[in-house]
């Protein structure tokens, strides 16, 4: 395992992420089409046809190939930690020309488009584990849905009811903009950054998988019903399916705070993962 091999693998991982959607989201969209009415049904048919075309033609599902984002769980005894960051960067550069990806990193001061690498971009979320392996999840995040993210610092007295109201209000305000049917990630507790991080991280959980905390699992289902009752529907043109899932993650809170973070994921719920062992062998996660 060297930088060349690892960066090639990263480019391959990005390619998988932007051209093939995981089976959980595809299943959810197909199920939605079965129950949907017009014009939502036409929208879902176009979405599903597009997913198939992208897969067969090996082309990006959406022209917004997103901000390149990675979730890395690296073992304390993983032997290649020193080349991880530079290989991810190099992999992003390679994928930009080979896939190709749209240049999506703009210099904040000059407005110049830099390709897909710039200050803090790609962004890597690091986690350290006890073993000798490394798991890398590519999570390219499009801006149409990311722009509908929100954070509100509620009063503790507002409770979970306040959190639910905020999520519903925000999704109604977002309407068709985040390209529904969406998956809504909600982070409750911690501080402002923790709530947002949890909200984004919750989107890595497969569509259809409930929280392992019973109260939160109940809240996820309640929120799904509430948001879908609004009738916003696929692409905001009206219909039964506005969200295919809601994921809630929680953290302990400060006695005086109740932060609620929302991160919205469009129907192009792109995720791809791989695990590298201590020998440098790569195992691609099934999608």
């Amino acid at each position: 395992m060297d930088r060349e091999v690892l960066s090639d693998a990263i480019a391959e991982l990005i390619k998988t992420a932007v051209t093939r959607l995981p089976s959980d989201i595809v299943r959810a969209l197909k199920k939605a089409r079965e129950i949907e009415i017009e014009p939502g049904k036409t929208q879902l048919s176009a979405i599903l046809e597009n997913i198939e075309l992208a897969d067969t033609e090996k082309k990006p599902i959406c022209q917004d190939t997103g901000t390149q984002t990675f979730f890395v769980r690296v073992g304390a005894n993983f032997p290649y930690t020193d080349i991880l960051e530079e290989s991810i960067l190099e992999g992003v550069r390679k994928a930009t020309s080979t896939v190709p990806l749209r240049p999506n990193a703009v210099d904040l001061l000059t407005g110049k488009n830099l390709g897909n690498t710039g200050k803090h971009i790609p962004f890597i979320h690091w986690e350290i584990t006890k073993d000798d392996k490394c798991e890398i999840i590519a999570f390219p995040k499009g801006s149409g849905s990311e722009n509908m993210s929100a954070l509100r610092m509620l009063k503790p007295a507002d409770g979970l009811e306040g959190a639910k109201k905020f999520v519903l209000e925000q999704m109604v305000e977002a309407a068709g903009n985040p390209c529904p049917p969406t998956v809504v990630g909600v982070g409750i507790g911690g501080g402002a950054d923790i709530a947002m991080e949890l909200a984004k991280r919750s989107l890595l959980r497969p569509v259809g998988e409930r929280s392992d905390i019973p109260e939160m699992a109940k809240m996820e289902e309640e929120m799904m019903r509430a948001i879908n009752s609004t009738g916003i529907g696929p692409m905001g043109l009206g219909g039964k399916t506005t969200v295919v899932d809601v994921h809630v993650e929680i953290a302990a809170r400060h006695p005086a705070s109740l932060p609620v973070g929302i991160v919205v994921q469009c129907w192009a719920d792109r995720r791809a993962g791989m695990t590298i062992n201590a020998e440098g062998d790569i195992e691609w996660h099934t999608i």
Partner: protein
Amino acid sequence: MAYDMRTPLQEDAVGKLRAGDTIYLTGTVVTARDGAHEKAIKMDRNGERMPVNFSETAVFHCGPIMRKNGGWEVVAAGPTTSSRMENIEHEFIKRFGIKMIIGKGGMGDRTVEACREHGAVYCAFTGGAAVLAAKAIKHVKDVFWLDELGMPEALWIFEVEKFGPLTVTIDTHGNNLTEKIKKMAKERAEKVKF
């Protein structure tokens, strides 16, 4: 209703369209996002000539992925969020005699008013359906402002065939489908008890 339409779009054909109709479009489409809208208006104010006659094409809110492969190849070309152009679209419609705007997410009151006044419609193409869109683009006719604005913001001139589904959400009669749905969604949300 579903219609097959062709550019240049005729005033009476556009006038017949109602919010909720579906269109498949054949002809010429030009991409324009925030940067291109601003540049075009600025140039027009200074009396400079446009490289395209916007009134004879449909304007597509899109920042495509293009690849040079001899000529230009469209890799992916779905719509971008139209509300970013809301503060400028009405002037764009008025100055250039736009007949059809294609984007996603819908647009607001100022665009509705300009569409009513100048006989234009706004249509939503399925957001994210970039390969489906690329498949309907048969030829890349030209590109302008590429060096200055970059790949996503440049004016790309596409020849399209049965480009769609396009759902009319703003017609020439003042209707706005996405706003109507948003209003209904708000009313329904207020009734939800937690």
